[in-house]
């Protein structure tokens, strides 16, 4: 089953009262607002129960159906009925809630150092302010490769973009398809290259979102598009990549026809079907798209809990977040959940061996999911359409970038984003 990347980042989070935290003595009720389906996650209910049990406070869980959530929540904020705690992804939709006006910056909270770099980065605004506590399940995206086949070919994974290029050519020379690149259904891949450009340079992202610059003006975007174009021309995506879609990834990978692909770890548990090669034959290295020397891993989209700075229960709300960020509490909540870490101290989650083995590299090269979630007007389909035009030689690199800009700006304008 095809799975869009905007959806796959599953994050486990638990809302656990830290056993060491000292709850306010007075009993009170905190309101928490979020999507219904989000609030029903097991680790969420677990942390809620732990908190109520430990603090004696009550939690008023306000939920909306997923499709109504953005509108209903916006209305609540507009009507002065903002909750004490608001749960939302740090994506472009968050802008409508006037973040700086409504939410408390958590930079100085004690638990911040326990956050993984990727999770912390994801939850920050463009100025580096921590907006919320990530409490979600997630996966790690990168370049998953057939390590068995690589060994058989006398090759080893790349650690740099240059090595990756050498590796691709070496694989191509052996007759294997270096990268399974499902052009007809691989909309998510392009953001891997864009993530480090904007994650590593928040002001640039801010300028882009204010329509003060374009992809066309950004050299790294051109480098990425050029690399993809060259890779296609050199045959690194194989011969039939234009016809290759989501359903073709698994057969290509399990047969050994293709050696590498840009995907996320949970894909191996949801869509990969064993063939000549099984999950144990695969390993993870960074995805290389010529926008960073050491490659990139894309962290998941994380749901985070934000505190209403105008809340009459501000202290209790901050206390609730600290309860959740307690190692004991979150390990209780996420016990047995397949995810990657948001907190460094997470030790009850189930993490794939591929991710575990690449942990050092991930720590060094992981970027928060930035392009898809934080660029206004970004659309996986639009970017894929621009690249499709490039692959079919209907346009060149510059034309492809202009198309990306055109689609992005058009979508932002359509959504009424200021500046577009």
């Amino acid at each position, binding site marked *: 089953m095809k799975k869009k990347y905007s959806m796959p980042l599953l994050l486990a989070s638990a809302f656990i009262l830290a056993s060491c935290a000292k709850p306010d003595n007075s009993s009170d009720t905190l309101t928490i607002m979020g999507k219904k389906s989000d609030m029903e996650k097991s680790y969420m209910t677990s942390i809620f129960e732990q908190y109520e049990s430990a603090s004696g406070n009550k939690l008023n869980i306000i939920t909306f159906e997923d499709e109504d959530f953005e509108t209903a929540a916006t209305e609540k904020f507009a009507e002065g009925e903002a909750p004490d705690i608001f749960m939302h992804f740090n994506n472009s939709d968050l802008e409508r809630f006037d973040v700086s006006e409504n939410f408390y910056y958590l930079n100085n909270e004690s638990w911040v150092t326990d956050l993984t770099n990727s999770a912390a980065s994801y939850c920050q605004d463009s100025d580096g302010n921590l907006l919320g506590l990530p409490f979600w399940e997630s996966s790690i995206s990168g370049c998953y490769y057939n390590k068995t086949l690589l060994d058989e*070919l006398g090759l080893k994974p790349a*650690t*740099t973009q240059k090595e990756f290029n050498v590796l691709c050519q070496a694989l191509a020379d052996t007759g294997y398809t270096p990268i399974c690149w499902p052009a007809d259904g691989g909309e998510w891949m392009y953001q891997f290259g864009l993530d480090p450009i904007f994650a590593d340079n928040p002001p640039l992202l801010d300028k882009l979102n204010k329509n003060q610059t374009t992809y066309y003006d950004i050299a790294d975007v051109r480098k990425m598009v050029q690399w993809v174009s060259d890779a296609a021309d050199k045959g690194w995506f194989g011969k039939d990549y234009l016809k290759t879609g989501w359903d073709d990834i698994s057969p290509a990978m399990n047969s050994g026809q293709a050696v590498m692909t840009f995907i996320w770890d949970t894909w191996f548990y949801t869509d990969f079907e064993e063939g000549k090669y099984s999950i144990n034959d695969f390993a993870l290295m960074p995805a290389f798209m010529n926008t960073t020397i050491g490659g990139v891993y894309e962290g998941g989209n994380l749901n985070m809990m934000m505190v209403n700075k105008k809340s009459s229960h501000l202290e209790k709300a901050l206390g609730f977040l600290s309860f959740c960020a307690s190692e004991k509490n979150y390990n209780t909540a996420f016990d047995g959940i397949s995810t990657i870490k948001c907190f460094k101290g997470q030790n009850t989650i189930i993490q794939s061996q591929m991710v575990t083995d690449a942990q050092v590299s991930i720590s060094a090269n992981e970027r928060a999911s930035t392009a898809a979630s934080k660029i206004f007007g970004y659309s996986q389909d639009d970017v894929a359409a621009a690249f499709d035009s490039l692959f079919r030689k209907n346009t060149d690199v510059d034309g492809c970038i202009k198309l990306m800009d055109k689609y992005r700006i058009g979508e932002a304008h359509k959504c009424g984003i200021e500046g577009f």
Partner: protein
Amino acid sequence: MKKWPGKILLFFVTAAASVAAVLIGIYYFHFISQRIYEDSAVHLEEIYGQVNHSLGAFISKNWGLLDSWDDYLASEKDAEESDIYDFINEKRAYWGFSEFYFLSYDGTYITLDGTEGIMDLGEAWDSLMEQKNPVMSGGTLSTDQDVTIFAIPVQHGKYKNVTFNAIAISYTNADIADSLNVDAFFGKAACFVIHDNGNVLLSTQPGGNVFENYLVYLNAASDLNKKELKQIGSDWENGKSGLLQCKIGGVNHYILYQPVKYQDYILLSVVPQNAVSAGFLSIQKATVCVLIIIFLIISTLAIALIVLYIQKQSRRNKTELAYRESMFNVLSNCVDDIFLMLNIHTQKAEYISPNIERLLGIPAAEAKQNIRIMEKCAINYNIVIPEKELEAIPLGGSRFWECEYMHQNTGERRWYRMTVYHLDIQNVKKHIIVLSDRTLEQQTNHQLQEALTVAKSANEAKSNFLSNMSHDIRTPMNAIVGFSVLLEKDADKPEKVLEYTRKITASSHHLLSLINDVLDMSKIESGKTSLNVDLFHLPQFLEELNIILMPQAKAKKQSFEIHVQGSPPEKLMGDKLRLNQILINLLSNAIKYTPENGQVTFQIVELPQPTQQYTKLRFIVQDNGIGMSEEFIEQIFTPFSREISSVTNKIQGTGLGMAITKNLVDLMGGIIQVESQPGEGSTFTVELSFALPEQEQTDSEPWFHNSITRILVADDEEEICLDIKEMLKSEGMEAAYATNGAAAVEAAVLAHQSGKDFDIILLDWKMPEMNGVETARNIRMHLGSDVPILVLTSYDWAEIEEEAREAGINAFMQKPFFVSAFQRAVRPLFHVQTAETPAEPEPADETMKGRLFLVVEDNELNAEILTEMLDMEEAKCELAVNGSEAVEMFEKSKPGYYDMILMDVQMPVMNGYEATRKIRSSHHPDAKNIPIVAMTANTFAEDVRNAMDAGMDGHLAKPIDMDTVRDLIGKLIGRKQDT
């Protein structure tokens, strides 16, 4: 021995030369490639020998550095850590290594800045720690960083409280690459330091190293086979050098390996062939290009020569073929045979002689396109290219069919014998079709058939003729014989004798006409008829014609009128007798085949004069008689043809008259046409041209001498009036006309009252209401007898003459009107003096009276008749029975004794011609002058000519007509007297 055709030989020679050239090229290419390989090998070995040397130096240098630092550490055991740090850090900055390590026996390390970790050197660890050897090894740090480690065992010491047993420095691959400076071949070369098992220790590849084991990789990516790979592995294990070529990823590469001096390392170089041999390859390419160009030039020249030769041959062949085809086309155009070459499989004609268009009206190109187009003109469809039957013809055999075609355009029918030959022409089966023209043969057969039919018909006709003639001759002969018997019996009865004599004469004349017709036809058919052109007087001619025919018409109570339209010349040059014969035939027939009370008209129309020397007249004979059927009209001019009907059976005739007429008209260069409907009558039209005699001065003075200037003409036919008016006008007279009697009377009275009487009044006899006699009577009542009145009539005026003269008519004129006749009629009334003023009244003809004739006649009966006739003319004769006797009698006679000799032609002993020649050549004084007249039944023109040639002066046809004899003798004797 079989001789190879030139083209095949040429082809094989060219092919062999090409193959040889290609083989030489391949050999040369291989030679060049080998040389390039060898040169490249030398080039590579030189370069990587230097690299290997540099690597050795690099290793030695690093171990040397480590040794020197070991010495430093040993000598400065008490030195401060900061001093050591500064010392080593200074060296690192200078020598470019990445890190310095203090290695412990347990595998841990500590860096200068105190970072601790584990170093995995694999097998090299034992060599370092246990065997106390300096090592160079790839190592993986706990940071997952791959580095190349140079380490030496040292005396144990301490750094930052960590005991170490060895020291080491590390380089990244990039560092080493920079140190070794292996950037030859445009950065396309890869250089590795590998273990003898293929594991890559380090790589100088610009992009870094992703190769774990290059032997394994070669197995996967190159085209080297297992044996070659095994050999490589063996070489590496044994520390041997090697150079080979292989393809990696489809690109030719050089693989060069050389043992490094230290440990069991191998320096492996992988270089794309085009990078190494770029220069050589360009030379190779240039050389090959030159060779190819030379080969192409030579090939082009050879091909051009071959093509020229072939074209020349082809042109020669084409010329020869065209010549043959032209010759064949000319030949086929000269004959009426058609030739086709047919492909039995395609049923298409590969060749068709061009005369097919001329003969059948089918363009050859169209027939070639579709042979079945011939079916259009085939009359017997069954045999048009009969496919099955064509296929049935055995190879080498032939078969023929008779067929008939019709020309597409002209409809002309042609007969052919279609012969089909089944042949094998250069292993291709063809059908050659020859359509042999049989048209002439067929037409000849038809003509023969027609001739046979005609002959049969002629024979039948002649049989009929003989039968008819037998009847027709016997009939008058019967009368002659019968009446002769009766004459003898009733000789004493003058009335009977007179009657019998008249009937015998009539029968004789009829018999004579029969004979004349037969003879005429015979003459015409034998082509012996010739014209005797002479001057004749048309009005006199018509008058004579009228005299002859009028009685016949009158006898049958028919009206017979002669009309003249226009003013034809009165004097013409022509054969009067033949013209007379033509018109007598037509008019006699008209009268003959027109019942009693019928109407026969004879019209002479003056046609536009073709030239000044000729005039053209149309003679129209029209009757309202029995007419003729259409079928008979078609053969009316065929000899011996007579229409058989109940009417014609009663009419005597030879069936030759019209044939003679037609032939005579043809002879005179005229045309004759006939229109007829059974029961409605017939119209014969004859058009003839006559030469005009030299123009004579028109004598119009007589009219003026007698003051005759105004004439009144009255005729109910206005055309006649106008014609007369026109003719008179040409004589300088003015004519008025009236179309009926009353009008004529009125005109005459008016003229009289005005004091300008007409000088002559010319009246038609038969006019409606008031005829000419009555009109004259009326005119006389008013005018008195001063003005002469003439009656113009086509009829015999004898019966009305008395009444007419009483009515005041002064004279009569025969129609048609002619000026000359008018003059003759008027002359007695005015005593007109004309050039033709006749002499005194003719005295009685005494031309022959008292003359002595020498009659030469072998036939006693004829001699007796002639003697009697001469006696009737009061002439005498002496008789000779043959030419010899006549000659003798003449020669013996006294000069002037004989007045004339009447000479028969066909006689025994000596014929008339010979006798005449002898008389003319004799010495008798009268030999040259005495008139000799042929008297013979041979009446043809050549007979007349022969007579003249023999010296005779005239020719009389038997039976003798005394009038003719009298005229001729008169002329000849007159001439004799003149001489």
